[in-house]
């Protein structure tokens, strides 16, 4: 039974290539917009708090509360509040993506060796130069790792949004009656392909940032 499902799913992919491609693009649009907005919010905030060594408790609280919040509950909350729509689901996805980005950015900057920061200050660098030229490059691998976790969360959650009327591959996954089990499986494979591609690319960026930081190691 499972074998025939595999065969059906692999037959579904070329037969519905156009549909799958379109839904994959919709999923990518939904997820990467949310990821982008989350980065724009979390990066400056995390950098600033980490640089000031302030808000440790808040950073920990945000991360554990963010992980504890079930995605379907969060999406349901925004739909109950604002109604169904691209931007309402987008807001829920941004909220899902923020915690790992914020905590990782915070700890990336907060964890930079204080002696290094002190040395930079002694060399006459201004606070904003220290942040941009010392703390940001040194913390970059950890920040990118946060983006990787956030990307997986956001992509996974965008499929859950399909249940309550979100667009993208989640629509196919949540609508077994129309697309059949083969369609669901084919769409699931597309989602995991997007997720694995995003993880792989960000993992590559993470290693590159790490190598640049420590060329000898």
């Amino acid at each position, binding site marked *: *039974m*499972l074998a025939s*499902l595999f065969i059906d799913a692999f037959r579904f992919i070329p037969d519905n290539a156009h549909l799958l491609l379109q839904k994959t693009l919709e999923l990518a649009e939904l997820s990467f917009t949310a990821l982008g907005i989350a980065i724009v919010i979390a990066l400056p905030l995390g950098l600033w708090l980490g640089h000031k060594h302030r808000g440790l408790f808040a950073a920990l609280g945000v991360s*554990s*509360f963010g*992980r*504890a*919040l*079930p*995605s*379907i*509950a*969060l999406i*349901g*909350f925004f*739909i*109950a509040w604002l109604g169904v729509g691209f931007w309402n689901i987008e807001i829920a996805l941004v909220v899902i993506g923020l915690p790992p980005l914020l905590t990782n950015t915070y700890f990336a900057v907060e964890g930079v060796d204080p002696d290094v920061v002190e040395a930079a200050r002694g060399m006459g660098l201004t606070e904003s130069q220290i942040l941009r030229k010392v703390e940001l490059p040194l913390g970059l691998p950890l920040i990118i790792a946060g983006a990787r976790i956030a990307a*997986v969360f956001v992509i*996974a959650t965008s*499929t*859950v949004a*399909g*249940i*309550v009327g979100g667009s993208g*591959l*989640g629509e196919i*996954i*949540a609508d*077994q009656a129309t697309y059949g*089990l083969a369609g*669901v*499986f084919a*769409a*699931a*494979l597309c*989602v*995991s392909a997007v*997720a*694995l591609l995003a*993880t792989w690319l960000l993992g590559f960026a993470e290693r590159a940032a790490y190598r640049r930081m420590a060329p000898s190691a």
Partner: protein
Amino acid sequence: MTGFRVAGGGPVIPNFGHVNACLKHNGWFCTAWVHEHWGDTLQPALIQHIKLTVIAVGIGFVIAFLLALVGFRWRFLHAPIGALSDFLYALPSIALFELLLPVTGITTTTILIPLIAYTLFVLYRNIVAGLDGVSAEVLESARGMGLTRRQTFFKVELPLAVPAIMGGLRVVTVSTISIATVAAFLIHYGLGAPIFDALGQPDIFRTELVAASALAVLLALAADGLLAVLQRALTPWNRVR
């Protein structure tokens, strides 16, 4: 299906015409409803959810531990096991539940198998990383003290890996509680059931949505705190600093 629905209000309901103003306006949190339906809706769902989480994390931990022993002992298997757990983790949860439904039917097994599969990703990596993290000097001195390979594993490597293992367990427990709510899309079980009931109303029933979601968050935070306490108890040497 249990209990009273806002949409179903009719003359049959006692106190008709006297309906709670909060419910009438679909308020965000009507304490009257929560009081009335704690016993027949929220509490049973909470208990079901705790059961799911404990069983899924328990079985997942045993499997991940055995896999980690294999991956730790026979290094060449480490990459394939890791890749397989990556792939499982990337598959969307609703799709996995739907795929299993024809095989295992409307049972908790259908919910548990994907939940267990998701725990493996984090647990396997954390257990191997914890065992790998024991420094060469420590292993050298264990050998110098005349410990056998087996004694080194149980008395040195395993206890030193406890923080990494417990860290993984905490992450996994919290995410299992979250993912388990999605399963109620197909199988009316656990805290997801009241959440989907609320979302299924013509006008989303806010009180039920908020109450059930809040229980899921509180359960996750409580479980995380409990495991943090257990971690402290298991690593007495970390406290002396």
